[in-house]
């Protein structure tokens, strides 16, 4: 860091910084303010002209959101889907990254390039084929993937997998090899070395990857809109349900948006230090 930089920054730099960061903060916080303030407004405030300050504060929207649409069910669905996808994705990424980081084998480059290049596939390209594939697997084997949480979990975990593997490879590379070679000499198997030495040393990277995987699954809209039904609908799709024919319950929508954002935003802000550290080690090479 530059705290001990021998030259104090000039006035022009300080003023540019002040102005830029102030404007940026306003831009960033504006929707957050709208979300929070509108969620506490009575319905009349959000159907009429926009008001900066509520005419009166009410927690009514926070009570009504649970009965206007089955928000609790959507919430549980999202939690199960995102949670399971995260756990699976992280475990699989750890194995893959360990193999790539610690072994030389044929096809290593093909693997990394292929996995990474899936990142650039437009989701729309495999949405429909995947839909057909899941339906066909269901018809022939009886495993219900289409419309089930399982299918969504499977789909989402592959979304975060490439980036997770990539980031963990970088992270594992930064764990000195001497450590796990010493463990191998001491009689640990390769998996012992992985779980006793490499994984504990790479916890920040693993946490970062987990945060990323959870956020990816929690926020996905496209596949959720096609691959879920009434019982498995996630928040991403369910939130649209607050618009009725006569009125749009904007205060409830804002309240619900806030409620579904709190778990991810809180988790992210608590763990962002690890994410930054993980990115430093992994992505930036």
């Amino acid at each position: 860091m530059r705290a001990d930089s021998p030259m104090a920054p000039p006035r022009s730099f300080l003023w540019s910084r002040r102005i830029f960061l102030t404007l940026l903060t306003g831009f960033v916080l504006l929707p957050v303010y709208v979300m929070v303030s509108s969620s506490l407004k009575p319905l009349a405030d959000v159907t009429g002209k926009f008001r900066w300050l509520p005419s009166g504060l009410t927690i009514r929207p926070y009570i009504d959101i649970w009965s206007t649409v089955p928000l609790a069910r959507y919430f549980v669905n999202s939690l199960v889907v995102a949670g399971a996808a995260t756990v699976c994705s992280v475990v699989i990424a750890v194995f893959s990254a360990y193999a790539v980081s610690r072994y030389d084998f044929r096809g290593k480059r093909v693997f990394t390039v292929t996995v990474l290049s899936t990142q650039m596939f437009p989701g729309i390209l495999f949405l429909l084929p995947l839909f057909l594939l899941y339906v066909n697997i269901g018809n022939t084997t009886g495993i219900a993937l289409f419309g089930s949480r399982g299918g969504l979990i499977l789909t989402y975990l592959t979304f975060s997998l490439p980036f997770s593997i990539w980031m963990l490879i970088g992270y594992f590379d930064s764990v000195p090899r001497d450590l796990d070679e010493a463990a191998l000499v001491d009689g640990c198997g390769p998996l012992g070395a992985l779980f006793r030495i490499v994984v504990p040393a790479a916890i920040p990277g693993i946490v970062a990857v987990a945060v990323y995987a959870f956020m990816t699954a929690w926020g996905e809209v496209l596949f959720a809109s096609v691959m879920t039904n009434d019982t498995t609908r996630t928040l991403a799709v369910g939130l649209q349900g607050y618009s009725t024919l006569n009125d749009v319950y904007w205060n409830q929508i804002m309240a619900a948006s806030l409620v579904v954002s709190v778990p991810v935003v809180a988790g992210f802000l608590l763990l962002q230090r690890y994410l930054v550290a993980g990115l430093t080690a992994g992505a930036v090479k």
Partner: protein
Amino acid sequence: MTTTAEVEKPRTDPGSERAPRPRPGRIRRIGLPYLLLLPALVLELLVHLVPMVIGIVMSFKELTQFYIRDWGTAPWSGLDNYKVSVDFDAPVGEALLHSFLVTVGFTLLSVGLCWLIGTAAAIFMQDTFRGRGLLRALFLVPYALPVYAAVITWVFMFQHDNGLVNHVLHDQLHLTDKPSFWLIGDNSFYALLTVSVWKGWPFAFLIVMAGLQNIPGELYEAAALDGAGRWQQIRRITLPSLGAVNQVLLLVLFLWTFNDFNTPFVLFGRAAPEAADLISVHIYQASFVTWNFGTGSAMSVLLLLFLLAVTGVYLAVTSRGRRASHAR
């Protein structure tokens, strides 16, 4: 693909050089790396590669609503789907071309702004100052918010009668004669761009911030001793040192923005206005409104080919540029 493989080289090689060639004792477990990769491979095959192949096959079929139940029986149609997609004089091709151009313009603007804001913020926040930690956390909020929750808030702000944007621009600042429509018509492009930049710049910020930490402090000290001011240091040291980071960052931002479906879908619903008709939503509509999945697949394949070409050229050009500047 060959270009991509070449470019991978600098990233993977240092690692294998650092590691001694595997000693005979380790070769014994030759199957292990494959075993470790197996779950990832199987899943990537199932969810990405197999569907992609199916998608390519579908693009050569006349897959209309009559064949959805049993798509294998749909008749082959050769290149018909592609011909329809790129016949720019006919409505379907014309609309696709329009959507493509809108997407290119939108992506370039969005990526440029995200990169600019993210880099500026990261550089301005390199020094420690009071409130820096809090500010950094705040700046990451748009990135952390679930897309739909954030975008739906913007939908509310862009409402014609009860939105914040019209209230400020029309009622308070009197900049417009009458309240504007933001989510339909030509303005929708700027609405989409605003939301996309708001949502996307923190990622650039995060990556550049991480990249800045890898610049050795001695460089700045040496420059300061030579009498370089702060602005000069930024121009001569900070920005050039970010070359490697920017190479990856810009590519990732480009691909994500170009393929973005979530933002326009939540912002406009299924019917995107013409001015903001991004390609992903366009193909989605083309597939699900007309139920002609064959043509939709052909469009997706064309999109993928375009992205592959852009990525290949980009990596080849930027890597050569970087190698050249390293050699100097």
